[in-house]
């Protein structure tokens, strides 16, 4: 591994870019491309020619691209390395490898999200100031489908700058003007004399040259790598079981820990009835109460720690939440829809007036979605060591190196650790889906490590904690109302959602000030449908708190609101006796980009063509994370209520595509993830506790349940949008709409089906009673 960039470099770039960002934010520029890229200075460090913060060259021709984003299966290491290789004219072959940097450089930060918030917006000045403050410590995180959007510009600039420096070094070596030189195949060429020098031979000289102020980027017409599918850099090692996921970290003298959290969220440890007995278990070294919220056992092996933890007899404090059931929570949501005081997100036109018209054709429906878990295949874990002198080091499958570092401080009680001396390593992630933006497992491991200085402690949550004592996607209930005009299209659109505020739940865990749930757009996103022509439109939300912690979950509010809104569009189409695709065509008359996506998916799926008996189709779309996705689901509903989804068609406009294979894979994966949730996922509460614990009761579709997915990318030259989450959003509504087409009964409640296990691990999905 290469040495850290020097402290000097870190401080200089930190000061410089902080200033630039402040100007950009205050000046209202707020757009990534306007932010200068700093951190482009290079240096030679032993065998490494560090060209800048993103690329290091080696004498033997190896090129190491630093990608400050977490690889969690989405192929981001490949996509972002392609940008550097493109600008440097390096073929995307085995010479290129990718590392997640351990440095927290400002140039790596998640700028788009921070700059995207204005003080005058509903989240208000508190959030804006908070984000301004954390921008002075770079927030490096992987999420919001924003990695390509964030680094699209800086990483191309970094590649172009490195190429510029190599050209200058080549010109000096050959004694010719730079203008006579070209680059290709990782070498500088002088056509006039027929001489070429590989980058590897120039790297040391080039790295110490001054980087250009504003290196020119290649025009689109000269791209040879961007837009063409490339091999995934992480796959060859993965088929050999070689990559180190967090769970695989092995360090000398390492201790292992397992844990039990409060069964009812928010309750506290009163006492451990049998602590002495558990401590006497073989090779148990420690039983620790962490912040009164959990009890961990530390032992020489994880199996011993877990076996001992299973014997813990913990008395937890009583809580009002002890009596809460899923039905009670749902009743609270229903009450809030009736009598809550909603926050108004959008109000265009006079919805009230349209509703008050005598004899108006009103369509009205109420929808429900449950709490769901993330169920990453790799359970939550973290390994932390506290070394002499307050130096801490962590190895974590995390979506954020910045948040990991803060969690280490937090877990160690903010004392005895030198903030500048915490080094975090982001390991491979066995799935993430938003779950690994949360860092409680890191804080817990750090707490345990501080009790065993000098020895690394690896804490692994058993699956039962991962599913039953975790963070969840909010449950939600929504009432939608439309007034149909003479043309059958909505003259007014009114959406009211009751849910637990994600931003408030996250804020209450992580910020000193709990943010207001008002204006939490993650609660209401997906209800506005701004691309549909709706003369009057209102979107409101009511916050319904509960004791259940809510977390980021792949596509967040879209995961339920798009189901609600796109099902409702279908209901309006049915009321207007119009084909659902024709209905959307009319709604998209003034949105040509969206219309093109609908047209593609309609053509791809053969919309309108007769289907085999027992099959039906449903369509839905969403524009989210700067991308547009439309899907058509084919379903089969049998006489006894079994529902299957054999095929899904998907058209997607993600703007400029970096790696087409990765976009297709993200659509396939997003669709299956969304389909799982649509059909069978839910966690339920009884006596305040989550009832599900493992894959037998939080079921996953099996290979035999997986649909064929056909994806087509709609060409675009707009800036890149996100790919990780958009595929999740529309599938639930598409399946629901297809079920309606098949049965004539409108499903309005997720999940749509119940899972029955048959035979050797196969699932049979049967329509829930209210939908069948």
């Amino acid at each position, binding site marked *: 591994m290469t040495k850290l960039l020097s402290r000097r470099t870190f401080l200089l770039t930190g000061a410089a870019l902080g200033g630039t960002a402040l100007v950009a934010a205050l000046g209202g520029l707020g757009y990534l491309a306007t932010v200068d890229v700093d951190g482009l200075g290079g240096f030679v460090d032993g065998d490494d020619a560090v060209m800048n913060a993103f690329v290091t060259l080696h004498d033997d021709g190896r090129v190491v691209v630093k990608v400050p984003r977490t690889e969690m299966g989405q192929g981001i290491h490949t996509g972002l390395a392609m940008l550097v290789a493109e600008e440097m004219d390096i073929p995307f072959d085995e010479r290129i490898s990718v590392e997640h940097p351990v440095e927290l450089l400002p140039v790596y930060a998640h700028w788009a999200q921070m700059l995207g918030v204005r003080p005058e917006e509903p989240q208000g000045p508190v959030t804006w100031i908070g984000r301004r403050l954390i921008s002075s410590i770079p927030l490096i995180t992987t999420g919001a489908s924003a990695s390509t959007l964030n680094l699209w510009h800086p990483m191309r600039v970094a590649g172009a700058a490195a190429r510029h420096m190599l050209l200058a070094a080549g010109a000096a070596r050959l004694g010719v003007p730079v203008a006579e030189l070209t680059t290709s195949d990782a070498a500088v060429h002088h056509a006039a004399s027929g001489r070429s020098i590989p980058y590897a031979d120039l790297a040391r000289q080039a790295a110490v040259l001054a980087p250009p102020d504003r290196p020119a980027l290649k025009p689109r017409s000269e791209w040879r790598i961007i837009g063409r599918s490339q091999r995934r850099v992480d796959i060859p090692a993965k*088929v*050999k079981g070689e990559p180190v*996921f967090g*769970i695989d970290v092995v360090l000398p003298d390492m201790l292992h820990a397992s844990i039990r959290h409060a069964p009812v969220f928010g309750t506290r440890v009163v006492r451990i009835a049998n602590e002495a007995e558990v401590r006497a278990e073989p090779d148990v070294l420690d039983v620790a109460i962490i912040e009164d919220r959990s009890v961990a056992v530390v032992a020489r092996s994880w199996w011993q720690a877990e076996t001992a933890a299973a014997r813990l007899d913990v008395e937890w404090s009583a809580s009002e939440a002890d009596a809460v059931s899923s039905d009670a929570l749902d009743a609270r949501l229903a009450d809030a829809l009736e009598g809550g005081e909603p926050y108004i997100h959008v109000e265009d036109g006079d919805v009230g007036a349209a509703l008050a018209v005598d004899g108006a054709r009103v369509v009205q429906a109420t929808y429900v979605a449950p709490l769901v878990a993330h169920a990453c295949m*790799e359970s939550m874990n973290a390994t932390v060591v506290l070394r002499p002198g307050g130096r801490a080091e962590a190895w974590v499958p995390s979506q954020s190196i910045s948040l990991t570092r803060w969690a280490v401080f937090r877990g160690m009680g903010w004392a005895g650790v030198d903030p500048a001396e915490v080094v975090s390593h982001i390991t491979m992630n066995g799935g993430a889906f938003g779950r690994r933006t949360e860092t409680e497992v890191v804080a817990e491991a750090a707490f345990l490590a501080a009790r065993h200085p000098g020895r690394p402690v690896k804490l692994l949550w058993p699956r039962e904690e991962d599913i039953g004592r975790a963070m969840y996607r909010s449950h939600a209930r929504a009432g939608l109302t439309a007034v149909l005009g003479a043309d059958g299209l909505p003259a007014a659109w009114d959406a009211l959602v009751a849910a637990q505020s994600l931003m408030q739940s996250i804020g209450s865990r992580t910020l000193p000030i709990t943010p207001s749930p008002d204006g939490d757009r993650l609660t209401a996103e997906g209800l506005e449908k701004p691309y549909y022509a709706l003369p009057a439109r209102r979107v409101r939300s009511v916050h319904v708190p509960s004791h259940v912690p809510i977390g980021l979950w792949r596509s967040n509010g879209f995961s339920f609101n798009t189901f609600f809104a796109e099902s409702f569009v279908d209901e309006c189409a049915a009321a207007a006796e119009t084909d659902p695709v024709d209905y959307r065509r009319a709604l998209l008359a003034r949105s040509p980009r969206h219309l093109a996506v609908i047209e593609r998916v309609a053509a791809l799926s053969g919309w309108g063509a007769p289907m085999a008996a027992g099959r039906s189709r449903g369509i839905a779309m969403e524009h989210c994370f700067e991308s547009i996705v439309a899907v058509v689901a084919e379903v089969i509903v049998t006489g006894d209520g079994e529902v299957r989804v054999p095929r899904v068609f998907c058209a997607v406009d993600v703007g400029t595509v970096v790696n087409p294979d990765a976009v297709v894979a993200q659509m396939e994966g997003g669709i299956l993830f969304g389909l799982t949730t649509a059909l069978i996922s839910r966690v339920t509460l009884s006596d305040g506790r989550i009832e599900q614990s493992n894959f037998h009761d939080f079921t996953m579709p099996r290979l035999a349940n997986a649909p064929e997915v056909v994806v087509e990318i709609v060409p675009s030259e707009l800036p890149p949008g996100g790919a990780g989450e958009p595929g999740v959003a529309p599938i639930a509504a598409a399946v629901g709409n297809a079920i309606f087409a098949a049965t004539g009964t409108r499903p309005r409640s997720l999940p749509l089906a119940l899972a029955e296990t048959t035979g050797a691990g196969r699932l049979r999905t049967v329509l829930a009673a209210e939908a069948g």
Partner: protein
Amino acid sequence: MRAGGAAAQGEAARSPLRQGATVVRATVNGESVEVEIDPRSSLLDVLRETLGLTGAKKGCDHGQCGACTVHVDGRRVASCLTLAAKIDGREVTTIEGLSDGDTLHPMQQAFIDHDALQCGYCTPGQIMAAVACVAEGNATSPERIPEYMSGNICRCGAYVGIVAATLDAAAKMGEG
């Protein structure tokens, strides 16, 4: 084999047997190993924690997800549900022992060729299950493979590629 196997052997040979422990002798990825284990421990925990073979993954610890799939005498097992003591005298193959030196097993190559994975966490189990699926004669068609590969969960949703890879490798393995 990775570091760990040899060290564990040495330790077992030197130290007197701990109370309640038992010694297991087996062939793991072609090498003879002798390890001292708690008789209650699972094959998965012994592979990962004692032998340093972390390719097989812990997903659920209850035989639900297939991430821990390895071969015992050529047959696939969920190593989390297999007592380590049961491998005494048997041959165990894990993902680390599947390739022939630098030459990948056809199934590994097929998983690369068909992008049959995303995060890669379930992949060692998927590949070991797929190799067994072919050996059992159950990889004969795109309809049959899903039936016999349904013990392995992929949360990322790379199922389409897994079927394609299994079918492709089956042809190359000459047993499909």
